[in-house]
């Protein structure tokens, strides 16, 4: 696994979640209580973009249907999502945010329903 630069720390203020692409992997980068958390940007309910959601005290909220995910474990705390979102290792150094990615990350972390559609339709 290698670490890649995602953004300047200042691009993700406390209490916000933003969308970034690194090596074709779409990431949600959230800052909650000062710490940065990096997850897949797709809600496991219907692939809505978590970056369009909100950082709340209860977790990362998807604004489409209200699913909430734990920042630290990715687990769904509140349905309709029932599957956890993928977590990535996050590092913050010298005012920059880095994410740890495996070489096949773009394939592994594609939106779930799109991946299923493509698998069924070739």
């Amino acid at each position: 696994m290698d670490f890649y630069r995602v953004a300047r720390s200042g691009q993700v203020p406390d209490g916000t979640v933003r969308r970034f692409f690194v090596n074709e992997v779409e990431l949600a980068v959230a800052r909650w209580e000062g710490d940065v958390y990096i997850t897949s940007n797709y809600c496991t309910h219907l692939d809505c973009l978590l970056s369009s959601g909100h950082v709340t005290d209860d977790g990362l909220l998807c604004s489409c249907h209200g699913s909430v995910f734990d920042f630290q474990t990715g687990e769904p705390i509140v349905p309709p999502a029932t599957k956890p979102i993928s977590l990535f290792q996050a590092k913050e150094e010298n005012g920059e945010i880095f994410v740890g990615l495996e070489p096949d990350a773009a394939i592994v972390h594609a939106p779930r329903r799109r991946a299923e559609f493509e698998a069924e339709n070739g």
Partner: protein
Amino acid sequence: MSVTDAPETVVIVGAGQAGAVAARTLRRRGHGGPIVLIGDEKHRPYQRPPLSKEYLSGEQERDECFLLDEKWCVDNNVDVRIGTAVDRIDPGSRAVELVDGSRVQADSVLLTTGARARRIPGVEGERVIYLRTLDDCDQLRAHLVPGQRIITVGGGFIGSEVASAGRAAGADVVVLEALDVPLERVLGAQMGQVCARIQRSGGVDLMTGHAVEAVEERPDKVIVRTQQGVTVEGDVVVIGIGTIANTEVAQRSGIAVEGGVLVDEYCRTDMSQVFAAGDVTSHWHPLFGQRLRVEHFDNANKQAMCAAKNIVGRATVFDDPHWFWSDQFGVNLQYSGHAPQWTDLVVRGDVDSGCFTAFYLDDGVVRAALSVDRGEDVFGSKELIAHQARPDPAALRDEDTELVDLAAG
């Protein structure tokens, strides 16, 4: 000693959605002691909205209904006991006594026993389905094929969503609604008429002003007779006429109940260290100044999270404005708030276009809002309701004015 150090046992009575969300929240909020989740259904905790929508229609897989996967439970020391009925909570020891005679010691108890479908006395059978559980839904799915004729009793959200799934599957659907328009009590006559229009546009034979008198089952069909003397035949009848809170465990424990388990704004019952959340509660709501019992998915989530926080000692008031949605016939309906009565209905957008938000004002205060294919108004509507706003109706109607700007004033 911090609250997270105490190895206290939390027993959650009722293994449905509220119970599952509470278990998740307890762990997230640092509760380290054992969690036992006891439910009398034979299934692990699952969510119900898909049972009248995407799971019923076959768009979603069954496994997506379930909320607590077994590995998470093992890793997080959450003991889920299904197919297990609770008798009562012993007031002295707070032990949870099971119907089989055994006891589960508890330091805190959360009642999330939910609600059951209201039944018509004497109306039962193979062709009669009261849609509430996964098993009811599996039984109904078999009828969602072209050529089947589905009758729903009740034109509310269960009836209309089943009707929508039925039509989408190519079945014929008749909806029998006792009132003059569907959802008249909750939405009023004008908005109820909009719901009627949505159902009819979807190809439903909606018969209003028809209360059910009798249901007769034959080997090959079911016959429904209305009080108005009309007879309707079909393959299956689905009854959705409301729910009754499962307050029996509370009652047998001596906990105060009236229509639901009575809780304050901290989700506390009148028994020490016993809380309740979700469909079973009649909760004091500070925003609306009265007690409410609602059956919303969102309430099960938010109230369960609130109860869990109070259990770990983090005092939290439950004052969420309340919100629910319905997806039917390609239309998205969202309702926020609570308006048992209202003095003015103010519409933003155009009712005839099918894209609008109707605000229910009571003496000038925004108490509720219904958005039809206008989800963008929901956030602002909830702000208005949460702030008990008194906006100028003209400003509500003015689409150049942002709703959130009207909230604080």
